[in-house]
């Protein structure tokens, strides 16, 4: 009690701020969630304008599915590289990248639910974000290939399959070619 009495004025100011802050929250609308990221549903494919927003706002983890040499020459800002050849080799650094995505973006609390011989992933806290994968261009199928390998439940290609399902992925079809010509040339 002495502690509360001693710091009474501090508590008053902090509680006042909390009350006014929460009152302000009431007027902010649904996109402002209190204890989780705003839930944004992406379609299976994202276009350039959506991708631009994702990159600038750092909304979702981005995976570059091209080879490592091309990635090192240039890539979309903040993208992680998952080169399929290194994935087959079970490369240590690559596995670290994969585990970083899972832990950093809060997928660890996902649960596998098994019902009637089928299973699905449940996002327990409703806090997961979509993962965006890109390759060179619409004709490049490495993005799809990387997704299917990552979702392999044998966990040979990392533990994505344990926490994520196909619905968690979106593909930026335009890929690096479109990004390089439209975004990088403008900025």
């Amino acid at each position, binding site marked *: 009690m002495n502690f509360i009495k001693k710091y009474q004025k501090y508590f008053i*100011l902090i509680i006042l701020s909390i009350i006014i*802050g929460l009152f302000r929250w009431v007027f902010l609308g649904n996109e402002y969630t209190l204890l989780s990221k705003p839930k944004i549903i992406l379609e299976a494919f994202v276009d350039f304008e959506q991708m631009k927003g994702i990159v600038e706002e750092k909304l979702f983890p981005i995976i570059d599915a091209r080879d490592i040499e091309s990635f090192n020459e240039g890539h979309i800002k903040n993208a992680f590289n998952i080169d399929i050849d290194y994935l087959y080799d079970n490369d240590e650094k690559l596995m670290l990248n994969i585990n970083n995505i899972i832990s950093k973006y*809060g997928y660890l609390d996902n649960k596998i639910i098994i019902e009637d011989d089928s299973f699905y992933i449940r996002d327990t806290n409703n806090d997961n974000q979509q993962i965006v994968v890109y390759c060179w261009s619409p004709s490049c199928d490495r993005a799809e290939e990387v997704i299917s390998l990552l979702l392999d439940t044998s966990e040979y290609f990392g533990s994505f399959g344990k926490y994520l399902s196909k619905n968690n992925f979106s593909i930026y079809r335009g890929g690096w070619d479109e990004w390089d010509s439209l975004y990088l040339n403008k900025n």
Partner: protein
Amino acid sequence: MQLRHIILKLIIFLSVYYLSLTFVAASLDKIIDPLSFSKLIFNYDITPYWINNLVALILPWLELICGLILFFGIFFNNNTSKNDKNIFFQYEEVANNIIILMLIWFIFILTIATARGLDIDCGCGLSETKTLPIIRLKEDIYLLILSFIIKFRFKIINFFKINTI
């Protein structure tokens, strides 16, 4: 009135004036658009994501309240010494202490951001353009010095053997 008395009084008044108005002005943008502020906190990559939105809602109001108390406190405060504590002085002291704690926290996260070489908009201060953490770090250190001048003003006065302020 001695000249050093006037100079000291002026320094303390300007410290209060500058510090409080900086906090009030810096809080307004964040109060209007807490979502952008939350994204800026997220960019620091230092706090768990679930806390960012909550902090973005509450912290600007705390900055505003402390800034206003500090600003008006000096006009309503007729104290002649630290022992003569009225309610304005007590809240002014509390607001200043909270500001010191906030500044220490800002300096801590800006130091980490600078050490990690993060090229992010620090999302603080009055500038409308992108401000790098290293620039803001220097400003926060100056503000911390001002807040310590305000906190220890009576000791400073005694040091210079001036009886009233």
